């Protein structure tokens, strides 16, 4: 068929707002992100931190556990020790850099695993609907009823100290909320008219999920997951602080906060440095996650 008619040329056919002809969704998102100064700034800080942490062995002036009791609790700005030394005379800068590797790893890994596991379960629940949805969501609610910190402490406590157990307990904590978000986003998309219209063409479930559901739900679920990284780092540090996470002498920020407790009066600046690191990272992750969410809402 070749239709040559052009009945009722649209009088409201104002040329589309965007000038380039190859504007994709992600390009539009990128352009919006570029205009968002806060998100760019926080993103830059995170990138810088990530690079420093990644290359910690090259960047750090000392090893994370090298120290001498004679040099303990030197103030910030001491020659050779830019950020001073800790209660065992170890270089703070070196320990913070190496500690970031543990903190980031323990903060991000549980969220990543929970994103994959919880995201899949939630999408299945949302797409299947009905009894399958009911079953999955009721089980999720049981976990959800516990406050996350309490749940993490309880699971970690029963599994015992150690980095693997800390990650495991945090993963268990983050799976239910991600299931919830994934389920509600998927249910929302499934009920939108374009999903109905796809069903009305006679398309199979596989095609509908791949073409219409996944591209529209993965973004929001991912954004939600990034907002959990900050919390994850704080709880992971909390576990270490309580002696349930990473064990000394490994330098993890939460653990450093714990062992520097006694120095809070003599060297308050040094004692709070690990806390500042945790705070900055988690705040930056939250801002970036917020910015992503706004940028992805193209309709606005």
């Amino acid at each position, binding site marked *: 068929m*070749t239709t040559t008619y052009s*009945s009722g040329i649209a009088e*409201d*056919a104002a040329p589309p707002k965007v000038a380039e002809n190859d504007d994709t969704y992600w390009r539009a998102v990128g352009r919006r992100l570029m205009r968002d100064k806060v998100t760019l700034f926080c993103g830059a800080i995170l990138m810088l931190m990530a690079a420093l942490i990644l290359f910690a062995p090259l960047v750090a002036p000392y090893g994370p556990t090298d120290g001498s009791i004679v040099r303990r609790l030197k103030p910030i700005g001491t020659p050779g020790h830019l950020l001073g030394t800790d209660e065992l005379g170890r270089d703070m800068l070196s320990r913070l850099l190496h500690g970031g590797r543990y903190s980031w790893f323990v903060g991000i890994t549980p969220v990543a695993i929970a994103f994959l596991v919880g995201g899949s379960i939630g999408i299945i629940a949302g797409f299947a609907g009905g009894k399958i949805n009911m079953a999955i969501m009721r089980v999720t609610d049981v976990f959800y009823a516990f406050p996350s910190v309490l749940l993490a402490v309880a699971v970690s406590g029963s599994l015992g100290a150690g980095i693997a157990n800390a990650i495991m307990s945090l993963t268990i904590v983050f799976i239910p909320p991600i299931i919830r978000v994934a389920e509600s986003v998927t249910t929302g998309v499934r009920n939108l008219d*374009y999903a*109905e*219209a796809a*069903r*009305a063409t006679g398309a199979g479930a596989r095609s509908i999920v791949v073409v219409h559901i996944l591209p529209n739900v993965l973004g929001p679920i991912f954004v939600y997951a990034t907002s959990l990284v900050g919390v994850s780092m704080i709880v992971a540090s909390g576990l270490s602080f309580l002696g349930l996470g990473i064990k000394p002498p490994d330098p993890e920020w939460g653990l450093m906060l714990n062992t520097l407790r006694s120095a809070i009066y003599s060297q308050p600046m040094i004692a709070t440095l690990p806390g500042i690191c945790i705070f900055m990272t988690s705040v930056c992750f939250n801002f970036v996650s917020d910015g992503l969410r706004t940028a992805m809402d*193209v309709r606005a």
Partner: protein
Amino acid sequence: MSDTQQIEDRGGPAQPLLIVKGLVKHFPIGSVFTGKQVVRAVDGLDFTIDKRETLGIVGESGCGKSTASRLIMSLIAPTEGEIVFDGDLVGAAGGISLAEYRRQVQMVFQDSYSSLNPRLTIEESIAYGPKVHGTPHREAGERARDLLQAVGLAPRQYARRFPHELSGGQRQRVNIARALALRPRLIILDEPVSALDKSVEAQVLNLLLDLKEQFGLTYLFISHDLNVVEHVADRVLVMYLGKIAELGPVDDIFGRAGHPYTRALLASRPSMDPTRRRTQPPLVGDPPNPINPPSGCRFRTRCALAREICAEREPGLYEIGAGHQAACHATQADSGYGDSRRLAA
């Protein structure tokens, strides 16, 4: 069979394209406190649509129009009832398969934005249906561009756009093109212009009328706007609380309405014509809850003519003219309405 062929008329011109028999949809809702209840969204619909005609369905918001369209589109399963398409029972052995039926019936929704996948280009959205049915990608793309042309959007300018870059009227044109892509015979239009500005509304309505001629289509046109239905419909079905109140040719419905509900609707519409006298009280209040509809005639709680008989017996759908039916006791001499006392309010 390749889906590039227009499906031929099987039953002949006299065979209605669509026959809806006893269509019922009860949505179960229930909470621990209220126990099991059902929303009687659609509660017994019988009607036919002839080939190449436009049947308009009007009724207030919540009367079950969208549910009826989703039932006919077989997006949801009916509680009861069946659908016959060009003489073949849908989804039954010996009838027409659901897959085949879905190719011949397509739908346009009210919300032009949520009807389009934001991640697909306009061309991809239109080509999706044909691709699902096995049309090669190139050919599907070509058809999509032809259809864009047919709905008045220059393909070169619009094919690679995303929905958020278009205006509401443009998006609705895309949705119409998408519905046409499978070469359907029946198109269900659920409030297709209700979200559009008045000026755009007229353009889209005229486009729909043109396309109907070009492609030999049959429309089921749903709207809560009587003026729109008067403009496009050949016959009109007036729905109230999941049931038919009145059904007839468009001139009869707008000129000789038999049902008090239809007359009240007509009296309530904003009129462009100051000389049109209001002989009826306009519609007041809201429709009752479809969970618990009134006994007898469902309209009796808002009907100025209601009598006791109206609460006791449900009116049938009585013939009041050629092809014109109304569900009201007052239209029947032998219904007992004349001897019944006024219903105490």
